[in-house]
Protein backbone atom coordinates (compact mmCIF):
# COMPACT_ATOMS: atom_id res chain seq x y z
CA UNK A 1 0.00 0.00 0.00
CA UNK A 2 1.26 3.44 -0.92
CA UNK A 3 -0.12 6.68 0.46
CA UNK A 4 1.11 10.20 -0.15
CA UNK A 5 0.37 12.67 2.63
CA UNK A 6 0.36 16.28 1.44
CA UNK A 7 0.80 18.55 4.46
CA UNK A 8 -0.75 22.01 4.33
CA UNK A 9 0.60 24.05 7.22
CA UNK A 10 -2.01 25.98 9.18
CA UNK A 11 -0.60 28.96 11.03
CA UNK A 12 -3.79 30.49 12.39
CA UNK A 13 -7.57 30.32 12.56
CA UNK A 14 -9.99 33.26 12.29
CA UNK A 15 -13.72 33.72 11.98
CA UNK A 16 -15.06 35.19 8.75
CA UNK A 17 -18.05 35.19 6.41
CA UNK A 18 -16.89 32.17 4.44
CA UNK A 19 -14.98 28.92 4.91
CA UNK A 20 -11.54 28.66 3.30
CA UNK A 21 -7.84 28.14 3.86
CA UNK A 22 -6.16 31.40 2.84
CA UNK A 23 -2.42 32.01 3.17
CA UNK A 24 -2.08 29.20 5.73
CA UNK A 25 -4.93 30.59 7.81
CA UNK A 26 -8.18 28.70 8.31
CA UNK A 27 -11.14 31.04 7.89
CA UNK A 28 -14.31 29.74 9.54
CA UNK A 29 -17.86 30.88 9.04
CA UNK A 30 -19.30 29.50 12.28
CA UNK A 31 -22.93 29.66 11.20
CA UNK A 32 -22.29 27.59 8.08
CA UNK A 33 -20.02 25.07 9.76
CA UNK A 34 -22.35 24.59 12.73
CA UNK A 35 -25.38 23.88 10.56
CA UNK A 36 -24.85 20.10 10.32
CA UNK A 37 -23.96 19.94 14.04
CA UNK A 38 -27.11 21.74 15.11
CA UNK A 39 -29.19 19.64 12.70
CA UNK A 40 -28.82 16.83 15.24
CA UNK A 41 -31.93 17.08 17.42
CA UNK A 42 -29.89 16.03 20.48
CA UNK A 43 -27.53 19.01 20.28
CA UNK A 44 -29.12 22.00 22.03
CA UNK A 45 -26.33 24.52 21.60
CA UNK A 46 -23.01 24.54 19.79
CA UNK A 47 -20.44 27.22 19.19
CA UNK A 48 -16.82 27.55 18.16
CA UNK A 49 -13.93 29.10 20.02
CA UNK A 50 -10.35 29.50 18.85
CA UNK A 51 -7.34 28.64 21.00
CA UNK A 52 -3.82 29.34 19.75
CA UNK A 53 -0.47 28.15 21.16
CA UNK A 54 0.83 30.40 23.94
CA UNK A 55 -2.54 31.99 24.74
CA UNK A 56 -3.73 31.97 28.33
CA UNK A 57 -6.53 29.50 27.67
CA UNK A 58 -7.71 26.32 29.39
CA UNK A 59 -9.93 23.96 27.37
CA UNK A 60 -11.92 21.45 29.45
CA UNK A 61 -13.50 18.93 29.51
CA UNK A 62 -12.15 17.73 26.17
CA UNK A 63 -13.74 14.75 24.48
CA UNK A 64 -11.81 14.24 21.25
CA UNK A 65 -9.11 15.92 19.17
CA UNK A 66 -9.32 15.48 15.40
CA UNK A 67 -6.99 16.54 12.59
CA UNK A 68 -8.82 17.62 9.41
CA UNK A 69 -7.86 15.61 6.32
CA UNK A 70 -9.27 15.08 2.84
CA UNK A 71 -8.77 12.25 0.38
CA UNK A 72 -7.77 13.76 -2.96
CA UNK A 73 -6.77 10.62 -4.88
CA UNK A 74 -7.45 6.92 -4.48
CA UNK A 75 -10.33 4.86 -3.13
CA UNK A 76 -12.49 5.76 -0.17
CA UNK A 77 -12.75 8.83 2.01
CA UNK A 78 -11.70 10.02 5.46
CA UNK A 79 -13.25 8.13 8.41
CA UNK A 80 -14.52 5.21 6.30
CA UNK A 81 -17.59 3.42 7.58
CA UNK A 82 -18.43 6.39 9.78
CA UNK A 83 -18.45 9.57 7.69
CA UNK A 84 -17.33 8.26 4.28
CA UNK A 85 -18.45 5.05 2.59
CA UNK A 86 -16.82 1.94 3.95
CA UNK A 87 -14.30 1.37 1.09
CA UNK A 88 -10.75 0.42 2.09
CA UNK A 89 -8.52 3.49 2.50
CA UNK A 90 -4.77 3.92 2.84
CA UNK A 91 -3.67 4.39 -0.76
CA UNK A 92 -3.55 7.33 -3.16
CA UNK A 93 -3.16 10.85 -1.86
CA UNK A 94 -4.49 12.62 1.24
CA UNK A 95 -4.19 16.27 2.23
CA UNK A 96 -3.58 17.07 5.90
CA UNK A 97 -4.21 20.40 7.63
CA UNK A 98 -1.08 20.23 9.75
CA UNK A 99 -0.77 22.39 12.86
CA UNK A 100 -4.44 22.55 13.74
CA UNK A 101 -7.19 20.41 15.22
CA UNK A 102 -10.89 20.31 15.86
CA UNK A 103 -11.36 19.83 19.60
CA UNK A 104 -14.74 18.71 20.95
CA UNK A 105 -15.51 19.92 24.45
CA UNK A 106 -18.38 19.76 26.90
CA UNK A 107 -19.37 17.29 29.58
CA UNK A 108 -20.91 13.96 28.55
CA UNK A 109 -20.97 12.71 32.13
CA UNK A 110 -20.55 14.54 35.40
CA UNK A 111 -17.00 13.37 35.99
CA UNK A 112 -15.77 14.16 32.51
CA UNK A 113 -12.07 14.75 32.26
CA UNK A 114 -9.46 16.17 29.93
CA UNK A 115 -7.61 19.47 30.15
CA UNK A 116 -5.66 21.25 27.43
CA UNK A 117 -3.74 24.30 28.69
CA UNK A 118 -2.39 26.44 25.85
CA UNK A 119 0.38 27.94 27.99
CA UNK A 120 2.18 27.34 31.30
CA UNK A 121 3.47 24.11 32.78
CA UNK A 122 0.38 22.12 31.76
CA UNK A 123 0.97 22.97 28.11
CA UNK A 124 4.27 21.10 28.23
CA UNK A 125 2.43 17.88 29.04
CA UNK A 126 -0.04 17.93 26.16
CA UNK A 127 0.90 17.87 22.47
CA UNK A 128 -2.32 19.70 21.64
CA UNK A 129 -1.07 22.96 23.18
CA UNK A 130 1.10 23.40 20.10
CA UNK A 131 -1.84 23.33 17.70
CA UNK A 132 -4.25 26.01 16.55
CA UNK A 133 -7.45 24.57 17.97
CA UNK A 134 -10.94 25.15 16.71
CA UNK A 135 -12.92 24.15 19.77
CA UNK A 136 -16.46 22.91 19.26
CA UNK A 137 -18.32 23.44 22.54
CA UNK A 138 -21.61 21.59 22.73
CA UNK A 139 -24.50 21.10 25.08
CA UNK A 140 -27.08 18.34 24.78
CA UNK A 141 -30.83 18.72 24.98
CA UNK A 142 -31.92 18.06 28.54
CA UNK A 143 -32.73 14.42 29.20
CA UNK A 144 -30.44 13.09 26.46
CA UNK A 145 -28.96 9.75 27.49
CA UNK A 146 -25.18 9.51 27.94
CA UNK A 147 -24.82 6.94 25.13
CA UNK A 148 -26.80 9.06 22.68
CA UNK A 149 -24.95 12.24 23.54
CA UNK A 150 -21.54 10.59 23.30
CA UNK A 151 -22.42 9.47 19.78
CA UNK A 152 -23.84 12.87 18.80
CA UNK A 153 -20.70 14.65 20.07
CA UNK A 154 -18.44 12.13 18.37
CA UNK A 155 -20.21 12.55 15.04
CA UNK A 156 -20.29 16.36 15.37
CA UNK A 157 -16.50 16.45 15.77
CA UNK A 158 -15.84 14.11 12.85
CA UNK A 159 -18.33 15.89 10.57
CA UNK A 160 -16.76 19.27 11.35
CA UNK A 161 -13.22 17.96 10.76
CA UNK A 162 -14.20 16.44 7.42
CA UNK A 163 -15.89 19.69 6.31
CA UNK A 164 -12.71 21.61 7.17
CA UNK A 165 -10.52 18.99 5.50
CA UNK A 166 -12.53 19.48 2.31
CA UNK A 167 -11.29 23.10 2.17
CA UNK A 168 -7.78 21.76 1.47
CA UNK A 169 -8.74 19.57 -1.48
CA UNK A 170 -7.37 21.87 -4.19
CA UNK A 171 -4.46 23.37 -2.26
CA UNK A 172 -0.79 22.71 -3.02
CA UNK A 173 0.88 20.97 -0.08
CA UNK A 174 3.84 22.59 1.71
CA UNK A 175 5.40 19.17 2.10
CA UNK A 176 4.62 15.74 0.74
CA UNK A 177 5.69 12.44 2.28
CA UNK A 178 5.10 9.03 0.72
CA UNK A 179 4.45 6.09 3.01
CA UNK A 180 4.69 2.65 1.50
CA UNK A 181 4.28 -0.79 3.03
CA UNK A 182 5.37 -4.03 1.35
CA UNK A 183 3.39 -7.19 0.76
CA UNK A 184 4.45 -10.32 2.62
CA UNK A 185 6.15 -11.64 -0.53
CA UNK A 186 8.10 -8.40 -1.04
CA UNK A 187 9.28 -8.67 2.54
CA UNK A 188 11.14 -11.87 1.64
CA UNK A 189 13.13 -10.26 -1.15
CA UNK A 190 16.45 -8.42 -0.85
CA UNK A 191 17.21 -6.11 0.90
CA UNK A 192 14.25 -6.55 3.31
CA UNK A 193 14.90 -10.27 3.69
CA UNK A 194 18.11 -9.53 5.60
CA UNK A 195 16.35 -7.43 8.23
CA UNK A 196 14.49 -8.50 11.37
CA UNK A 197 10.75 -8.87 10.81
CA UNK A 198 8.97 -6.51 13.20
CA UNK A 199 5.25 -6.05 13.72
CA UNK A 200 3.15 -3.60 15.68
CA UNK A 201 0.38 -4.77 17.99
CA UNK A 202 -1.99 -1.90 18.66
CA UNK A 203 -4.42 -2.41 21.53
CA UNK A 204 -7.76 -0.59 21.26
CA UNK A 205 -9.95 0.33 24.20
CA UNK A 206 -13.31 -1.40 23.83
CA UNK A 207 -15.19 -1.86 27.08
CA UNK A 208 -18.40 0.10 26.78
CA UNK A 209 -19.70 3.64 27.13
CA UNK A 210 -16.86 6.19 27.04
CA UNK A 211 -14.39 3.34 26.46
CA UNK A 212 -15.02 2.55 22.79
CA UNK A 213 -13.06 2.59 19.53
CA UNK A 214 -14.38 2.06 16.03
CA UNK A 215 -12.59 0.39 13.11
CA UNK A 216 -14.19 1.19 9.75
CA UNK A 217 -17.33 1.89 11.77
CA UNK A 218 -17.24 -1.45 13.59
CA UNK A 219 -17.33 -1.33 17.38
CA UNK A 220 -13.92 -2.78 18.30
CA UNK A 221 -15.35 -4.88 21.14
CA UNK A 222 -17.16 -6.97 18.55
CA UNK A 223 -14.00 -7.75 16.58
CA UNK A 224 -11.29 -10.35 16.86
CA UNK A 225 -7.65 -9.43 16.39
CA UNK A 226 -6.92 -8.66 12.77
CA UNK A 227 -4.47 -7.07 10.38
CA UNK A 228 -4.71 -3.49 9.17
CA UNK A 229 -2.47 -1.51 6.84
CA UNK A 230 -0.33 1.16 8.48
CA UNK A 231 -1.50 3.77 5.99
CA UNK A 232 -5.18 2.93 6.59
CA UNK A 233 -4.92 4.62 9.98
CA UNK A 234 -3.66 7.80 8.29
CA UNK A 235 -7.00 8.02 6.45
CA UNK A 236 -9.05 7.64 9.63
CA UNK A 237 -9.79 3.91 9.60
CA UNK A 238 -9.76 3.98 13.41
CA UNK A 239 -11.62 6.62 15.41
CA UNK A 240 -11.99 7.29 19.10
CA UNK A 241 -15.26 7.04 21.01
CA UNK A 242 -13.33 7.17 24.23
CA UNK A 243 -13.79 9.84 26.89
CA UNK A 244 -12.11 8.33 29.94
CA UNK A 245 -8.42 8.27 30.81
CA UNK A 246 -7.57 11.64 29.28
CA UNK A 247 -3.87 11.05 29.81
CA UNK A 248 -3.58 7.65 28.15
CA UNK A 249 -6.45 7.31 25.72
CA UNK A 250 -5.87 7.56 22.00
CA UNK A 251 -7.79 10.44 20.48
CA UNK A 252 -8.67 10.34 16.80
CA UNK A 253 -5.70 12.71 16.30
CA UNK A 254 -3.41 10.06 17.81
CA UNK A 255 -4.83 7.37 15.52
CA UNK A 256 -4.23 9.56 12.46
CA UNK A 257 -0.69 10.41 13.58
CA UNK A 258 0.37 7.19 15.32
CA UNK A 259 4.06 7.73 16.18
CA UNK A 260 4.82 4.01 16.53
CA UNK A 261 3.67 3.49 12.95
CA UNK A 262 5.55 6.55 11.77
CA UNK A 263 8.80 5.49 13.44
CA UNK A 264 8.49 1.91 12.19
CA UNK A 265 7.93 3.20 8.63
CA UNK A 266 10.95 5.46 9.06
CA UNK A 267 13.13 2.52 10.18
CA UNK A 268 11.65 0.19 7.55
CA UNK A 269 14.27 -1.02 5.08
CA UNK A 270 17.07 0.44 7.18
CA UNK A 271 17.22 -1.36 10.51
CA UNK A 272 14.10 -3.54 10.32
CA UNK A 273 11.39 -4.90 8.07
CA UNK A 274 8.06 -3.45 9.25
CA UNK A 275 5.79 -6.35 8.39
CA UNK A 276 2.39 -5.13 9.53
CA UNK A 277 -0.05 -3.90 12.15
CA UNK A 278 -2.20 -6.18 14.29
CA UNK A 279 -5.11 -4.50 16.06
CA UNK A 280 -6.61 -6.16 19.11
CA UNK A 281 -9.30 -5.15 21.58
CA UNK A 282 -9.50 -4.76 25.38
CA UNK A 283 -12.83 -6.26 26.44
CA UNK A 284 -14.56 -6.74 29.76
CA UNK A 285 -15.38 -10.42 29.19
CA UNK A 286 -12.36 -12.50 30.16
CA UNK A 287 -12.83 -15.14 27.47
CA UNK A 288 -12.67 -12.30 24.92
CA UNK A 289 -9.30 -11.27 26.36
CA UNK A 290 -7.98 -14.82 26.09
CA UNK A 291 -9.28 -15.20 22.52
CA UNK A 292 -8.00 -11.83 21.33
CA UNK A 293 -4.51 -12.29 22.79
CA UNK A 294 -4.37 -15.86 21.39
CA UNK A 295 -5.20 -14.42 17.98
CA UNK A 296 -2.60 -11.70 18.33
CA UNK A 297 0.08 -14.31 18.97
CA UNK A 298 -1.28 -16.52 16.20
CA UNK A 299 -1.19 -13.69 13.65
CA UNK A 300 2.31 -12.72 14.76
CA UNK A 301 3.44 -16.29 14.19
CA UNK A 302 1.60 -16.43 10.85
CA UNK A 303 3.56 -13.31 9.83
CA UNK A 304 6.80 -14.96 11.05
CA UNK A 305 7.62 -11.96 13.21
CA UNK A 306 10.96 -11.79 14.99
CA UNK A 307 9.87 -8.92 17.16
CA UNK A 308 6.81 -6.88 18.10
CA UNK A 309 5.99 -3.58 19.73
CA UNK A 310 2.76 -3.60 21.76
CA UNK A 311 1.03 -0.35 22.70
CA UNK A 312 -1.68 -0.29 25.37
CA UNK A 313 -4.62 2.08 25.71
CA UNK A 314 -6.08 2.97 29.09
CA UNK A 315 -5.57 1.76 32.64
CA UNK A 316 -6.49 -1.21 34.85
CA UNK A 317 -8.53 -3.64 32.82
CA UNK A 318 -6.24 -3.42 29.74
CA UNK A 319 -3.17 -4.22 31.86
CA UNK A 320 -4.47 -7.80 31.73
CA UNK A 321 -4.66 -7.75 27.92
CA UNK A 322 -1.22 -6.15 27.74
CA UNK A 323 0.42 -8.90 29.76
CA UNK A 324 -1.53 -11.63 27.93
CA UNK A 325 -0.41 -10.23 24.56
CA UNK A 326 3.18 -9.89 25.74
CA UNK A 327 3.54 -13.33 27.30
CA UNK A 328 1.84 -15.13 24.42
CA UNK A 329 4.01 -13.34 21.86
CA UNK A 330 7.16 -14.11 23.84
CA UNK A 331 6.12 -17.76 24.24
CA UNK A 332 5.79 -17.88 20.45
CA UNK A 333 9.36 -16.70 20.08
CA UNK A 334 8.49 -13.08 19.24
CA UNK A 335 10.68 -10.65 21.15
CA UNK A 336 8.31 -8.08 22.56
CA UNK A 337 8.57 -4.51 23.79
CA UNK A 338 5.52 -3.02 25.51
CA UNK A 339 4.60 0.66 25.73
CA UNK A 340 2.48 1.57 28.72
CA UNK A 341 2.18 4.22 31.41
CA UNK A 342 2.26 3.98 35.17
CA UNK A 343 -0.13 4.54 38.07
CA UNK A 344 2.58 4.28 40.67
CA UNK A 345 1.22 6.68 43.28
CA UNK A 346 2.21 10.32 43.74
CA UNK A 347 5.68 9.24 44.89
CA UNK A 348 6.12 6.74 42.05
CA UNK A 349 6.86 3.91 44.49
CA UNK A 350 3.79 1.70 44.05
CA UNK A 351 3.31 -1.19 41.64
CA UNK A 352 2.62 0.72 38.40
CA UNK A 353 0.47 -1.85 36.54
CA UNK A 354 -2.40 -4.10 37.60
CA UNK A 355 -0.67 -7.09 36.04
CA UNK A 356 2.90 -8.23 35.50
CA UNK A 357 4.99 -11.12 34.22
CA UNK A 358 8.68 -12.01 34.00
CA UNK A 359 8.38 -12.15 30.21
CA UNK A 360 7.45 -8.45 30.14
CA UNK A 361 11.10 -7.52 30.45
CA UNK A 362 11.26 -4.74 27.87
CA UNK A 363 9.02 -1.84 28.79
CA UNK A 364 8.80 1.73 27.56
CA UNK A 365 6.91 3.91 30.02
CA UNK A 366 5.14 7.09 29.06
CA UNK A 367 5.22 8.43 32.61
CA UNK A 368 3.49 8.25 35.98
CA UNK A 369 -0.10 9.44 35.67
CA UNK A 370 -0.39 9.87 39.46
CA UNK A 371 2.25 12.58 39.60
CA UNK A 372 0.85 15.80 41.06
CA UNK A 373 0.94 19.05 39.16
CA UNK A 374 -0.34 22.56 39.83
CA UNK A 375 -1.81 24.22 36.76
CA UNK A 376 -1.74 28.03 37.01
CA UNK A 377 -4.93 30.01 36.43
CA UNK A 378 -5.71 30.94 32.82
CA UNK A 379 -7.32 34.15 31.66
CA UNK A 380 -9.92 32.31 29.65
CA UNK A 381 -11.67 28.97 30.07
CA UNK A 382 -13.25 27.26 27.08
CA UNK A 383 -15.84 24.76 28.31
CA UNK A 384 -16.41 24.65 32.02
CA UNK A 385 -14.48 24.24 35.25
CA UNK A 386 -17.54 22.98 37.12
CA UNK A 387 -16.30 19.46 36.75
CA UNK A 388 -12.66 19.90 37.62
CA UNK A 389 -13.15 18.61 41.14
CA UNK A 390 -14.54 15.45 39.65
CA UNK A 391 -12.09 14.73 36.85
CA UNK A 392 -9.70 11.83 37.11
CA UNK A 393 -6.79 12.91 39.22
CA UNK A 394 -8.64 15.88 40.63
CA UNK A 395 -9.92 15.84 44.16
CA UNK A 396 -12.14 17.92 46.35
CA UNK A 397 -10.57 21.33 46.43
CA UNK A 398 -8.63 20.72 43.19
CA UNK A 399 -9.99 23.95 41.82
CA UNK A 400 -8.55 26.74 43.93
CA UNK A 401 -10.11 30.15 44.39
CA UNK A 402 -7.61 31.85 42.08
CA UNK A 403 -8.51 29.43 39.26
CA UNK A 404 -5.38 27.30 39.58
CA UNK A 405 -5.83 23.55 39.70
CA UNK A 406 -3.96 21.01 41.78
CA UNK A 407 -4.31 17.69 40.06
CA UNK A 408 -2.59 14.56 38.80
CA UNK A 409 -1.07 14.32 35.34
CA UNK A 410 -3.90 12.01 34.36
CA UNK A 411 -6.28 14.95 33.98
CA UNK A 412 -4.22 16.36 31.11
CA UNK A 413 -5.04 15.29 27.56
CA UNK A 414 -2.38 12.96 26.18
CA UNK A 415 0.09 13.52 29.05
CA UNK A 416 1.05 9.84 29.39
CA UNK A 417 -0.16 8.61 26.01
CA UNK A 418 0.86 4.99 25.51
CA UNK A 419 1.73 5.45 21.85
CA UNK A 420 4.53 7.66 23.12
CA UNK A 421 2.89 10.71 21.57
CA UNK A 422 4.22 12.95 24.32
CA UNK A 423 6.10 16.20 24.42
CA UNK A 424 8.30 15.32 27.38
CA UNK A 425 10.70 12.40 27.51
CA UNK A 426 13.79 11.21 29.30
CA UNK A 427 15.67 10.93 26.03
Amino acid at each position, binding site marked *: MKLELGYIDIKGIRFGDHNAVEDHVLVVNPEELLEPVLADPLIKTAHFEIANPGESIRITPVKDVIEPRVKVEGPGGIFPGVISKVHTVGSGKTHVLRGMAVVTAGPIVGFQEGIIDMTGVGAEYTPFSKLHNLVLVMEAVEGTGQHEYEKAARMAGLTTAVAIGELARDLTPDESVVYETPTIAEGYQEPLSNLPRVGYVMMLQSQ*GLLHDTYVYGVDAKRTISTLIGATELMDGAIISGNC*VSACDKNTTYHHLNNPVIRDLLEAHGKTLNFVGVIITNENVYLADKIRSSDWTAKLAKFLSLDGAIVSQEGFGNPDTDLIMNCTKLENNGVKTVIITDEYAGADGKSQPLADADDLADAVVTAGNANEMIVLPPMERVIGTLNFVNKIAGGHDGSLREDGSIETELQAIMGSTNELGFNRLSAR
Partner: protein
Amino acid sequence: MLTSSFQILTNNPLVAESFSERFHVKFFDDANDRDVLRNVRDLVHLGYRVLTAPLSGSVKPWETPYRSVMMTSDHGDEVDAFSLDIMERALAVIEKSKDRPWTYTPSVLYDFQVIDLSLIESALPSVEATGRL
Protein backbone atom coordinates in the same frame (compact mmCIF):
# COMPACT_ATOMS: atom_id res chain seq x y z
CA MET B 1 -30.85 -22.05 30.67
CA LEU B 2 -28.66 -18.98 30.24
CA THR B 3 -29.92 -17.18 33.29
CA SER B 4 -28.68 -19.99 35.50
CA SER B 5 -25.19 -20.10 34.02
CA PHE B 6 -23.87 -16.87 35.52
CA GLN B 7 -24.44 -14.46 38.36
CA ILE B 8 -23.56 -10.80 38.82
CA LEU B 9 -22.21 -9.39 42.07
CA THR B 10 -22.66 -5.64 42.29
CA ASN B 11 -23.12 -2.62 44.51
CA ASN B 12 -24.60 -0.67 41.60
CA PRO B 13 -28.36 -0.21 42.07
CA LEU B 14 -28.80 0.41 38.35
CA VAL B 15 -27.28 -2.98 37.49
CA ALA B 16 -29.56 -4.62 40.06
CA GLU B 17 -32.58 -2.82 38.67
CA SER B 18 -31.72 -3.53 35.03
CA PHE B 19 -30.69 -7.18 35.34
CA SER B 20 -32.49 -8.69 38.34
CA GLU B 21 -35.44 -9.95 36.33
CA ARG B 22 -33.28 -11.61 33.70
CA PHE B 23 -30.23 -12.80 35.59
CA HIS B 24 -29.16 -13.86 39.03
CA VAL B 25 -27.92 -10.66 40.70
CA LYS B 26 -26.41 -10.41 44.19
CA PHE B 27 -26.89 -6.78 45.13
CA PHE B 28 -24.77 -5.45 47.97
CA ASP B 29 -26.58 -2.32 49.00
CA ASP B 30 -24.36 0.18 50.84
CA ALA B 31 -21.26 -1.95 50.17
CA ASN B 32 -18.19 -0.30 48.71
CA ASP B 33 -16.19 -1.44 45.69
CA ARG B 34 -13.70 -3.34 47.86
CA ASP B 35 -16.51 -5.29 49.54
CA VAL B 36 -17.87 -6.40 46.17
CA LEU B 37 -14.46 -7.60 45.01
CA ARG B 38 -13.78 -9.37 48.31
CA ASN B 39 -17.09 -11.22 47.99
CA VAL B 40 -16.13 -12.26 44.46
CA ARG B 41 -12.71 -13.39 45.66
CA ASP B 42 -14.29 -15.43 48.46
CA LEU B 43 -16.54 -17.21 45.96
CA VAL B 44 -13.46 -17.97 43.83
CA HIS B 45 -12.09 -19.86 46.83
CA LEU B 46 -15.29 -21.95 46.78
CA GLY B 47 -14.69 -22.95 43.15
CA TYR B 48 -16.65 -20.29 41.23
CA ARG B 49 -14.93 -18.71 38.22
CA VAL B 50 -14.75 -15.03 37.33
CA LEU B 51 -16.09 -14.18 33.86
CA THR B 52 -15.45 -10.43 33.58
CA ALA B 53 -12.50 -8.21 34.41
CA PRO B 54 -12.87 -6.96 38.00
CA LEU B 55 -11.20 -3.69 36.99
CA SER B 56 -13.85 -3.42 34.33
CA GLY B 57 -12.95 -0.15 32.65
CA SER B 58 -10.50 2.69 32.78
CA VAL B 59 -12.56 4.75 35.22
CA LYS B 60 -10.18 4.93 38.15
CA PRO B 61 -10.91 3.01 41.35
CA TRP B 62 -10.52 6.24 43.29
CA GLU B 63 -13.26 7.77 41.13
CA THR B 64 -16.07 5.26 40.73
CA PRO B 65 -17.74 3.82 43.82
CA TYR B 66 -19.30 0.99 41.78
CA ARG B 67 -18.12 -2.49 40.86
CA SER B 68 -19.96 -5.23 39.05
CA VAL B 69 -18.47 -8.63 38.32
CA MET B 70 -19.94 -11.56 36.42
CA MET B 71 -19.18 -15.07 37.74
CA THR B 72 -20.28 -18.61 37.02
CA SER B 73 -23.34 -19.63 39.01
CA ASP B 74 -22.05 -23.17 39.34
CA HIS B 75 -18.84 -23.98 41.11
CA GLY B 76 -16.23 -26.63 40.43
CA ASP B 77 -14.31 -28.71 42.94
CA GLU B 78 -11.08 -26.79 42.49
CA VAL B 79 -10.08 -23.17 42.81
CA ASP B 80 -9.59 -21.59 39.37
CA ALA B 81 -6.06 -20.19 39.48
CA PHE B 82 -6.70 -17.60 36.77
CA SER B 83 -9.76 -16.22 38.58
CA LEU B 84 -7.90 -16.07 41.88
CA ASP B 85 -4.91 -14.34 40.33
CA ILE B 86 -6.99 -11.67 38.58
CA MET B 87 -9.02 -11.01 41.76
CA GLU B 88 -5.95 -10.69 43.97
CA ARG B 89 -4.33 -8.30 41.50
CA ALA B 90 -7.51 -6.21 41.24
CA LEU B 91 -7.86 -6.08 45.03
CA ALA B 92 -4.23 -4.97 45.31
CA VAL B 93 -4.95 -2.07 42.92
CA ILE B 94 -8.14 -1.10 44.74
CA GLU B 95 -6.57 -1.34 48.18
CA LYS B 96 -3.55 0.75 47.29
CA SER B 97 -5.70 3.44 45.68
CA LYS B 98 -6.35 6.51 47.73
CA ASP B 99 -9.61 7.06 49.52
CA ARG B 100 -12.41 9.02 48.00
CA PRO B 101 -12.82 11.83 50.52
CA TRP B 102 -15.44 13.73 48.59
CA THR B 103 -19.09 12.99 48.04
CA TYR B 104 -20.69 13.04 44.64
CA THR B 105 -23.91 14.73 43.67
CA PRO B 106 -26.75 12.32 42.78
CA SER B 107 -26.37 13.11 39.09
CA VAL B 108 -22.65 12.28 39.08
CA LEU B 109 -23.38 9.07 41.01
CA TYR B 110 -25.97 8.20 38.39
CA ASP B 111 -23.40 8.76 35.62
CA PHE B 112 -21.02 6.35 37.36
CA GLN B 113 -23.85 3.83 37.59
CA VAL B 114 -24.56 4.19 33.87
CA ILE B 115 -20.88 3.64 33.00
CA ASP B 116 -20.61 0.60 35.28
CA LEU B 117 -23.82 -0.82 33.78
CA SER B 118 -22.46 -0.23 30.28
CA LEU B 119 -19.22 -2.04 31.12
CA ILE B 120 -20.96 -5.16 32.41
CA GLU B 121 -23.55 -4.97 29.60
CA SER B 122 -20.73 -5.07 27.07
CA ALA B 123 -20.00 -8.64 28.17
CA LEU B 124 -23.54 -9.87 27.47
CA PRO B 125 -23.22 -10.54 23.70
CA SER B 126 -20.08 -12.56 24.45
CA VAL B 127 -21.66 -14.56 27.26
CA GLU B 128 -24.76 -15.15 25.17
CA ALA B 129 -22.62 -16.54 22.33
CA THR B 130 -20.85 -18.92 24.70
CA GLY B 131 -22.29 -22.40 25.08
CA ARG B 132 -20.81 -23.65 28.32
CA LEU B 133 -19.28 -21.11 30.64
